[in-house]
């Protein structure tokens, strides 16, 4: 079979081949144009030479299967795939932005810059995981940033799709990945846990913020396996001014046991975007590696690998949602506050990985400059935070699972919606007043949120009886709550 038709000036299935922009051991990449398609495109073709790595071909098969099934701004848009019997290729959108690879020349980078980039990648990973894919090769050369800011993950040759046959897993005994970034469970041959990508991102952030790779660049399997028991120096050992919150996040990503990392990419992004909400544990303050004897014990303990709890893509998304509860502080002790709390408790009971953000909107006039102090001279913002915590106290949520935010904005619904979008909230829970006199007058906040929310919204109400004791209940819904999908 003659596969060598891809040369500049040639036409393959209507695509005119332009400049070659990459030539590696696994694939070659060309710029292409098409008379009917008006966007910058790339054609990727596998290297099929005699003696080529068989993984190149299988990886290409995987990418041909996975890429067409992915959507959204965090992946290159799929255009066309070429049949293996004629000429295998993939044509995809050429991402106009830049790859992260050149950043390596400027390490270490400022913490804020690394955290902001990390948050973007975490959001991209979350989107990928929700589409049933674990990337398994997260590294600077596979991450690009669009001019609009979103991170894009490229190269799905080593990826795993939990609804498609995993050709890589079946065909190769050795773990495939990139040595410095590979998660311990991936080294052990597990390819289905989305949190493996979080580990790789942790390595990347560690590397970018300290200039040092936490696990070096081992060339043998034995060297790769070392990360199962050998803990890297905490970033604070390398840079004494390393922020506690950032060390906390990075070391949590680098946990050997995936179950101790963040439940989802969205939750990791949430922490990176809200440093003041990060719950600091012993991880944040460590200044040196574990004692030699501890490391040695781990090295020779069978538990080290046995206790690793591997997850799957399927079990992942649903277990770690971000739930925003919008609380009207004028009613922190009434029946509605109680009903709202009960609804949240019921949701959390079934979702041990869920994270709760308690929100209140401090209304600000558009024209008048509000004073931040109330009549008695107290700071309104602080007062609201105190009240939010008071509302949540009976839920007995452990620290680190719950955060409190007072949003200052002129419009309540818009503020809640903006927060939900920015923080990738999965579920908004809020109360609606039983009495509708104000609602009729001002419009319903819950109604507006339910209509425009990017996620599920549960509107909680106290049960009313049919007697029109409030004067307007006859035609109202009488359920305790309902969910808007």
């Amino acid at each position, binding site marked *: 079979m003659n596969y060598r038709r891809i040369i500049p000036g040639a036409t393959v299935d209507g695509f005119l081949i332009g400049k070659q922009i990459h030539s590696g051991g696994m694939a070659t990449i060309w710029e292409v144009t098409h008379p009917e398609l008006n966007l910058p495109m790339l054609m990727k073709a596998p290297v099929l030479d005699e003696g080529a790595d068989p993984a190149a071909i299988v990886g290409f098969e995987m990418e041909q*299967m996975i890429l067409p099934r992915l959507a959204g701004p965090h992946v290159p848009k799929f255009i066309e795939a070429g049949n293996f019997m004629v000429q295998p290729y993939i044509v995809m959108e050429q991402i106009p932005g830049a790859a992260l690879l050149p950043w390596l020349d400027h390490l270490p980078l400022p913490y804020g810059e690394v955290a902001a980039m990390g948050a973007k990648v975490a959001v991209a990973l979350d989107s990928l995981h929700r589409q049933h894919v674990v990337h398994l090769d997260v590294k600077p050369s596979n991450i690009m940033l669009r001019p609009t800011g979103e991170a894009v993950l490229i190269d799905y040759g080593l990826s795993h799709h939990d609804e498609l*046959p995993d050709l890589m897993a079946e065909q190769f005994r050795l773990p495939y990945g990139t040595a410095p970034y590979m998660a311990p469970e991936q080294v052990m041959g597990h390819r289905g846990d989305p949190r493996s990508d979080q580990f790789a991102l942790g390595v990347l952030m560690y590397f970018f913020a300290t200039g040092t790779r936490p696990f070096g660049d081992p060339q043998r399997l034995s060297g790769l396996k070392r990360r199962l028991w050998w803990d890297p120096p905490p970033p604070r050992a390398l840079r004494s001014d390393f922020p506690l919150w950032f060390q906390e996040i990075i070391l949590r990503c680098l946990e050997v046991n995936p179950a101790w990392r963040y439940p989802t990419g969205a939750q990791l992004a949430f922490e990176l975007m809200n440093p003041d909400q990060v719950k600091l544990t012993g991880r944040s303050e460590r200044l040196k590696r574990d004692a030699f004897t501890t490391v040695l014990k781990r090295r020779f303990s069978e538990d080290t690998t046995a206790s690793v709890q591997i997850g799957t893509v399927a079990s992942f998304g649903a277990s770690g949602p971000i739930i925003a509860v919008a609380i009207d502080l004028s009613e922190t002790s009434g029946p509605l506050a109680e009903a709202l709390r009960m609804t949240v408790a019921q949701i959390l009971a079934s979702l041990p990985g869920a994270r709760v953000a308690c929100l209140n909107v401090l209304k600000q006039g558009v024209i008048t400059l509000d004073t931040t102090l109330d009549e008695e001279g107290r700071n309104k913002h602080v007062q609201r935070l105190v009240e939010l915590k008071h509302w949540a106290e009976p839920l007995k949520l452990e620290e680190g699972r719950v955060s409190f935010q007072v949003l200052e904005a002129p419009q309540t619904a818009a503020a809640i919606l903006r927060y939900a979008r920015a923080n990738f909230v999965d579920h908004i829970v809020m109360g609606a007043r039983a009495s509708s006199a104000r609602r009729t007058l001002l419009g319903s906040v819950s109604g507006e949120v339910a209509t425009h929310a990017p996620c599920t919204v549960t509107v909680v109400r106290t049960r009313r009886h049919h007697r029109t004791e409030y004067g307007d209940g006859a035609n109202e819904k009488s359920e305790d709550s309902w969910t808007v999908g």
Partner: protein
Amino acid sequence: MLIALMADIHANREALEACLRDAKGKGAAKIVFLGDYVGYGADPVWVVDRVMDHVARGASALMGNHDNAVSDLRDSLTADAQMAMAWTRGRLGSEAREFLAGLPMRIEDETRLYVHANVQTDRRWLYIDDRNAATRALHARQAQAVFCGHVHIPAIYGITATDKIVSFKPVSDVPVPLSPQRRWLAVLGAVGQPRDGNPSASYALLDTKKSEITYLRVPYDIEATILKIRNAGLPESLADRLRKGQ
């Protein structure tokens, strides 16, 4: 072209009706029936009649072990199946019997091979239920893709030229590409008696242009089917297992 693949109907009228309706709605241009139209269920006459009708209009139909057992008394079946078979024999007319007896053991169509159970030998009804069995089956023939039923549990196997085999449990509604650099064996779920824990009727759609197979699940009125099995005096276990899909 979209080909509907339906195996192991087992005299379940409600399940077959639901799958035929679903396939029509999704634009299937052809149907291949992969055998076992009778046995277990209470509607053998209606089901065989329906299959004959479709074959007269261009569908293909293979012989299954239960169809063979209608006339071949030597074929061994489990106790429940034996009981249901005795009941079935008493109901089928001569036209249906002749139709079943004349069905082919395998059908080849371009690069595709359809069989009921296994490809190696005729009238020995082996189960392809693991990688070894799949490897043996794929070694026996050179077809690019083999489709079979008989196991009642959906599975896909793919083998490379160097004998590396991938096995996979297909997910409903997700198209699986059958890429040309491998040879494939697709085991279909059962229309009329699923055994993978999901009671809904199972069939698949093969897109020959895209070379993709999509396994589908179709809900049907299981209680109506169960009532008929009970009223016919067939073993209770045959009714019960439909509800559980086991």
